[in-house]
């Protein structure tokens, strides 16, 4: 008999922390450039991020349309020429769009950098938004939107955003066909002129690169960096959470119901936010979480349930989501309610908290697994206007968390009465 099997393998503590942080330099044009080193087989990832995310909205869909249409033609090249050059040199492009930042990331083989970066810089800084390309984009976006609105998770997700942020807020606005077709070239050109320039830009380069690449980047963007732009005006949007706390959306013929539950939380200090992250992980942030254990692994009601929390300006957005059989949403919702109450009522054992902490520390370690992962970690910090100390503080909070602190967070931040619930599912 293998007695060693019963005993198992030793499990060791491990260090988590910021590994291989970026070096910050200024490009010759004055744009902050973050460099993360790492062996990436002669490929670099270069991200251009602009203060041009959803929160800068000057009209519905304009920021997201703007970043999506950058590649559709510049003062130097047509959309087709851009596509041909980037594809031939095997450049992989990832547009990004979030609350604060919009931009594009490019995987570039170093030997092609001098050829492709001038093409890229031209469409990032001098796009022309041809009318015909805009028309095609609108038509196809509209078709995608119609398909999306057939999905219960999208119906519930959009509705809860509207209820939490309000219909006038960029993160809560409902999108209808008039909005899609209402975006004009002039709006895009204006938005681009005021939001895509040296003062609103930062660059993240990851990979095994040297000064030569930085020169190539400088040379590529230099022609577009000239006159000082007017200071960026950030429209002020206030969240207007609806007092109605429950909605059932009927989706005829659906076999499942999507549940969304969430709230906005005022964040007065970052230490509380870091503790909220720990509490969220315990509740629904990992495979062994209470929601997963109860609703999937014990009751078998869902393929997956999770909770999340992220920063949105001076607030945190808390969200629980699951899809369940059409006739079990009420049962699932009751179990979610029970788990929210249990955050206050049920003991958090040493064992449970230890697993949460180890899982979170492992995640932090994985955030820096390689240059491209480290780049993603830095970009998410920059998106929220944060830097590496935020991760260090998060790690300290994980170590410090205990039952008393977490129960206090549960009592003050994510009680059931604060929650808005939206369910989208079949006819009752």
């Amino acid at each position: 008999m293998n007695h060693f099997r019963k005993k198992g393998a030793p499990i060791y503590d491990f260090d988590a922390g910021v590994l291989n942080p970026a070096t910050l330099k200024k490009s010759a044009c004055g744009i902050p450039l973050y460099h993360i080193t790492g062996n990436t087989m002669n490929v670099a990832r270069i991200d251009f991020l602009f203060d041009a995310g959803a929160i800068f909205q000057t009209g519905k869909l304009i920021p997201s349309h703007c970043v999506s249409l950058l590649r559709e033609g510049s003062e130097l090249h047509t959309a087709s020429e851009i596509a041909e050059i980037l594809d031939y040199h095997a450049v992989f492009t990832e547009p990004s769009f979030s609350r604060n930042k919009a931009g594009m990331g490019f995987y570039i083989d170093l030997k092609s950098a001098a050829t492709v970066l001038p093409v890229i810089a031209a469409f990032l800084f001098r796009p022309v938004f041809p009318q015909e390309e805009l028309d095609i984009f609108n038509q196809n976006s509209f078709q995608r939107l119609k398909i999306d609105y057939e999905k219960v998770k999208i119906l519930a997700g959009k509705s809860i955003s509207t209820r939490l942020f309000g219909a006038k807020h960029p993160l809560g606005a409902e999108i209808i066909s008039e909005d899609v077709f209402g975006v004009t070239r002039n709006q895009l050109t204006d938005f681009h002129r005021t939001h895509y320039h040296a003062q609103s830009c930062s660059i993240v380069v990851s990979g095994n690169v040297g000064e030569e690449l930085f020169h190539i980047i400088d040379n590529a963007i230099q022609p577009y960096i000239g006159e000082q732009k007017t200071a960026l005006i950030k429209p002020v949007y206030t969240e207007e959470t609806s007092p109605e706390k429950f909605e059932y959306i009927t989706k005829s013929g659906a076999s499942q119901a999507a549940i969304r539950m969430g709230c906005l939380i005022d964040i007065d200090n970052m230490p509380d936010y870091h503790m909220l992250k720990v509490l969220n992980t315990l509740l629904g942030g990992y495979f062994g979480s209470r929601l997963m254990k109860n609703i999937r692994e014990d009751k078998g009601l869902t393929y997956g349930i999770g909770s999340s929390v992220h920063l949105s300006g001076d607030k945190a957005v808390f969200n629980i989501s699951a899809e369940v059989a059409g006739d079990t949403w009420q049962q699932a919702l009751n179990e979610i309610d029970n788990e929210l109450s249990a955050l206050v009522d049920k003991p958090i054992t040493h064992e449970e908290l230890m697993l949460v902490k180890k899982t979170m520390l492992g995640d932090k370690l994985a955030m820096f697994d390689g240059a491209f992962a480290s780049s993603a970690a830095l970009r998410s910090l920059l998106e929220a206007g944060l830097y590496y100390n935020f991760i260090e503080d998060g790690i300290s909070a994980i170590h410090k968390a205990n039952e008393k602190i977490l129960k206090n967070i549960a009592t003050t931040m994510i009680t059931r009465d604060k929650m808005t619930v939206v369910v989208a599912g079949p006819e009752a």
Partner: protein
Amino acid sequence: MIDFEKYHLPNGLRVILHRDTTTPMVVVNVMYDVGSRDENPQKTGFAHLFEHLMFGGSLNVPEYDRVVQKAGGENNAFTNNDITNYYVSLPAENLEAALWIESDRMLELAFSEKSLEVQRNVVVEEFNQRYLNQPYGDAMLLLRELAYRVHPYQWNTIGKKPEHIRQASLKEVKEFFYSHYAPNNAVLVIAGNFEPDNTHRLIEKWFGSIGSRDVSPRNIVQEPVQTEARSLSVDRDVPQNALYKAYHMVNRLHPDYYATDLISDILSNGRSSWFFEKLIKEQHLFSEVDAYIVGSIDPGLFIISGKPLPDRSYPECETAIEQLLQRITTGDFTDRELEKVKNRCIAARKLEWAGALNKAIDLAYFEILGDASMMNEEEDKYRNVNRDQIVRVAQSLFDKKNCSTLYYNKKNPHEPLP
């Protein structure tokens, strides 16, 4: 070039080690040579259901996930038509914990009737969530059934229908384990930051004592050549028509596999691809259209799928697709176009291998195919494809008799059928 060390344990387990000291992590990947093609047609979805049960506890490890969490790791698994793969990625210090739990569930499972009951429900909800309650979610289920009459690729990994999963019994599930889960039917890959000598010793300690088993011999009837075009038309509650075409293609080890893959790239990989340029941007026929291969171990499918814009008919869309296919079968493409898709294809593979996990999965997969070292030959195989080969492969691939077409119609109002 991915360097690795390979050896066998006496029980038949194939072991592959790829060391990368630049990462603080290590990946332990176990791939079993069993997928949904090994299922009984009356009991489909078993391989995948079984994957769920592998997390329900083994002889000495009541809670698999708990150990992974305690070790600061993350884990997951996936099943496809050919293989079932399990991985753990964790801080390098805790390599041995992963070897312990992976070896224990290879040794003997210990899940309960309750665990089976719960996972049956979970998988049925997965079936709903991913296939039945999504617009167009059942399209691939229908297309497979249309294209394959005999071969078990006619069903998706999730199974033919939820009833098959609901009926799975504990006895059947246990039989499945002993006939497919065995060291001599698996590949263990360790990739990442580890110390080789100690790792050899740990592998021997945890996996060496598991006995080899009689694995069910694989006896799959291969799909006969399709001799006439097939089509199916279904009406669904979706906002837009969709069109799917499946052509039988070669198996994964066939030398023409690479040309077939590059043909799909000429058609639809990237924004300069023909489908994007011609069908979406110039001719305004589709809101989205794609060509890709299902590169399975037995002969797979070359698939074209698209959603015609509301005012476009199936015949005009199909004619436009045909014209582009014909350009390939007549050699009407430039050398630069061929070079471009090769560049993209090779670069994409390199990027995929930037992380230890993907390298580990690919090493295991190529070993299941026959030899992990084939992974390092992929670039040359793509590079060496020439124009004549593309034309020859396209001519046999795009024979109309080889095609199965699914018309997925928007209900209310019904579109005129072709």
